[in-house]
């Protein structure tokens, strides 16, 4: 058994059934071994998409998934996808081919120091130097990626090591022991009792749920907690889906681009329970004001998140599922009805002051109507730009999933993440929503969708501009637009035809319901272009 065969065997033993990748000479032995294995390979059209596809797949399967590239430019093309996964704590194992060991460091053809280049975007990385280390390294890589605060792990494997015969019999370790990595925090009993005490005393408690709740699969426990104790909840963009939109205790997404009533709820609360959220600038633009008015309980699996942005808090480090299962065993006084009542009042009295163009398709209406017509458990993948913010703001979450690149804000995420998600959940309806800018950033992946017959739906909000930057230039730079016009290209009908995809177009609100129905029920992959007036702004 050579190194490549050992690596493939390890992936099989980790339960990997599909990998996304792009071959090259430096990873060719791996591809040769994989062809003789049970693993399905999805050839993407550019390496970044392999990372995003594995990301979408990992989020839906709630398991670590794998992407593979060759050395040099193949590996560097993957960097943005690794940064995207790192920012959103998505568990990936990325395998990159490397030039022969004895050539490493000599700047030979297609050599890049990918470990060095990805140092700040991965949880951990390896350069394989000895073929016999492969089983141990792979086991460790999966362990690190999937435990604690999840994230991407890189394995860089030189070409000659892949071809080298193992010096001892292949044995996959049952478990790994790392003296410097102990992800399973035992929940501190003293902190826990302080948290319980603080919640008992609170008159106006509020939960702010982030992506960590979904990553830790804590939705059922949080929901039970919220319902049992009548504690209202707001979410970050990554926390969309913790509660359905119609839930009486859900008060929307907070932040710059969120619901004003969600922000009011935060300001009016006397105890904010932050769970699995980074308190990033778009969610909490002024943490220093917040820390003066509200007392905060900060629950996170990563202790370094506590105190990173927000000042003195009551910290509790641990797994969200475990913590809320414990909290659900406690009795708390029912939250004052006046508190919930006041939030409901604010929610119902909030008037949307934004001006919406009557022309063409109203993007807010589009997202509402689309999400209502989608299956209850559908997967909605929002790209980045105005489309992301309209999506986050108006998506009617039922029992499905809302995926987006929340931390890094990577344009072009939605199409590869959507087909990755669809491959992970073939029975679920998957819709990618992007703008004409983000669509074109991953347009080449339509080839992957066509060849593999992945029946995803892609909805393009077309306004001929990089809309969010245009909006920024309008407000901050007195409408001096610079470098933001996309004009009328491409001809989407021809693109759809070129890739054997269904094609729908809608230019009015009146035609929207019918077109959406046809689009969603189309048998196979399809593109729907909705024309949006460029004057529509997010804020």
């Amino acid at each position, binding site marked *: 058994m050579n190194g490549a065969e050992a690596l493939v065997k390890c992936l099989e033993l980790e339960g990997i059934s599909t990998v996304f990748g792009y071959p090259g000479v430096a990873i060719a032995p791996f591809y040769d071994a994989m062809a003789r294995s049970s693993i399905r390979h999805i050839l993407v059209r550019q390496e970044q998409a392999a990372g995003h596809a594995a990301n979408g797949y990992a989020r839906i399967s709630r398991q670590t998934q794998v992407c593979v590239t060759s050395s040099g430019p193949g590996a560097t093309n993957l960097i943005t996808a690794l940064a995207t996964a790192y920012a959103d704590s998505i568990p990936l194992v990325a395998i990159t081919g490397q030039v022969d060991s004895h050539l490493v460091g000599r700047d030979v053809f297609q050599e890049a120091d990918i470990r060095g280049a990805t*140092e700040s975007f991965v949880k951990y990385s390896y350069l394989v130097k000895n073929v016999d280390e492969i089983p141990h390294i792979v086991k460790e890589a999966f362990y690190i990626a999937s435990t604690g605060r999840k994230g991407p792990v890189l394995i860089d494997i030189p070409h000659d090591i892949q071809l080298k015969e193992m010096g001892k019999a292949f044995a996959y370790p049952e478990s790994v022991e790392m003296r*410097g990595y102990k992800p399973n925090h035992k929940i501190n009993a003293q902190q826990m009792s302080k948290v319980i005490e603080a919640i008992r005393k609170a008159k106006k408690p509020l939960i702010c749920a982030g992506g960590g709740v979904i990553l830790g699969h804590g939705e059922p426990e949080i929901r039970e907690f919220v319902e049992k104790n009548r504690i209202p909840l707001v979410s970050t963009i990554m926390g969309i889906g913790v509660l359905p939109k119609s839930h009486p205790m859900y008060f929307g997404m907070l932040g710059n681009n969120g619901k004003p009533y969600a922000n009011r709820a935060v300001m009016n609360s006397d105890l904010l329970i932050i769970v699995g959220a980074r308190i990033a600038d778009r969610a909490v633009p002024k943490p220093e004001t917040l820390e003066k008015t509200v007392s905060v309980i900060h629950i996170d699996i990563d202790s370094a998140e506590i105190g990173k942005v927000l000042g003195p808090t009551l910290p509790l480090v641990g797994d969200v599922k475990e913590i809320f299962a414990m909290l659900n065993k406690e009795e708390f006084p029912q939250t004052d009805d006046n508190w919930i009542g006041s939030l409901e009042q604010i929610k119902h009295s909030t008037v949307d002051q934004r001006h919406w163009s009557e022309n063409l398709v109203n993007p807010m209406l589009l997202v509402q109507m689309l999400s209502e017509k989608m299956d209850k458990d559908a997967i909605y993948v929002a790209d980045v730009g105005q489309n992301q913010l309209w999506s986050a703001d108006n998506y009617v979450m039922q029992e499905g999933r809302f995926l987006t690149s929340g931390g890094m804000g990577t344009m072009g995420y939605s199409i590869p993440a959507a087909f990755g998600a669809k491959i992970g959940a073939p029975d679920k309806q998957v819709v990618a929503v992007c703008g004409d800018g983000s669509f074109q950033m991953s347009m080449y992946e339509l080839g992957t969708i066509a060849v593999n017959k992945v029946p995803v739906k892609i909805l393009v909000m077309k306004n001929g501009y990089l809309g969010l930057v245009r909006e920024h230039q309008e407000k901050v730079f007195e409408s001096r637009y610079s470098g933001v016009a996309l004009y009328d290209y491409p001809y989407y009908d021809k693109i759809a035809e070129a890739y054997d995809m269904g094609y729908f177009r809608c230019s009015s609100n009146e035609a929207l319901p019918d077109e959406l129905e046809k689009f969603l029920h189309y048998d196979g992959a399809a593109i729907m272009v909705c024309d949006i007036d460029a004057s529509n702004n997010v804020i």
Partner: protein
Amino acid sequence: MKGIFSVLVENRDGVLSQISGLFARRGFNIDSLVVGTTEQKDVSSMTIVSTGDQRTIDQIEKHLNKKPDVIKVRRLDESKSISLEMMLIKVGCTQANRGSLIEICTVMGGKIMHVTPRAMMIEVHGTPETIEDFIEMVRSYGIIELQRTGTISLGRT
């Protein structure tokens, strides 16, 4: 405030770059960083001295702990630990003022390593403050060059 971290790490390639990269990326200060081997050949020891506010020093400790190659982080309290540093310093001197320079060395524990007609090389070791004091004392003679090892620290208990 000053933060002194005694850090045990896996003796592996790339660990130093991971640690220094962490400080650079997050904007943490490194006043000094010393790496050496320990009694175990697969473990290296680092002493990192940094300055920052309480929040920064706390964050440094947490981020160091997050690194899988970091085995143990110990934050040392200055009053409960011993910190030492060594310096080689080359100071200009002439026949006229050589005597007074030798006097400073005698008083402050500087060891004269080499003498030329125009300069003297002195070795000093002690707490980082001792080193600072010595530099101040000889500054007027003209410092030609100096090299400091950086601080090494161990907790008393």
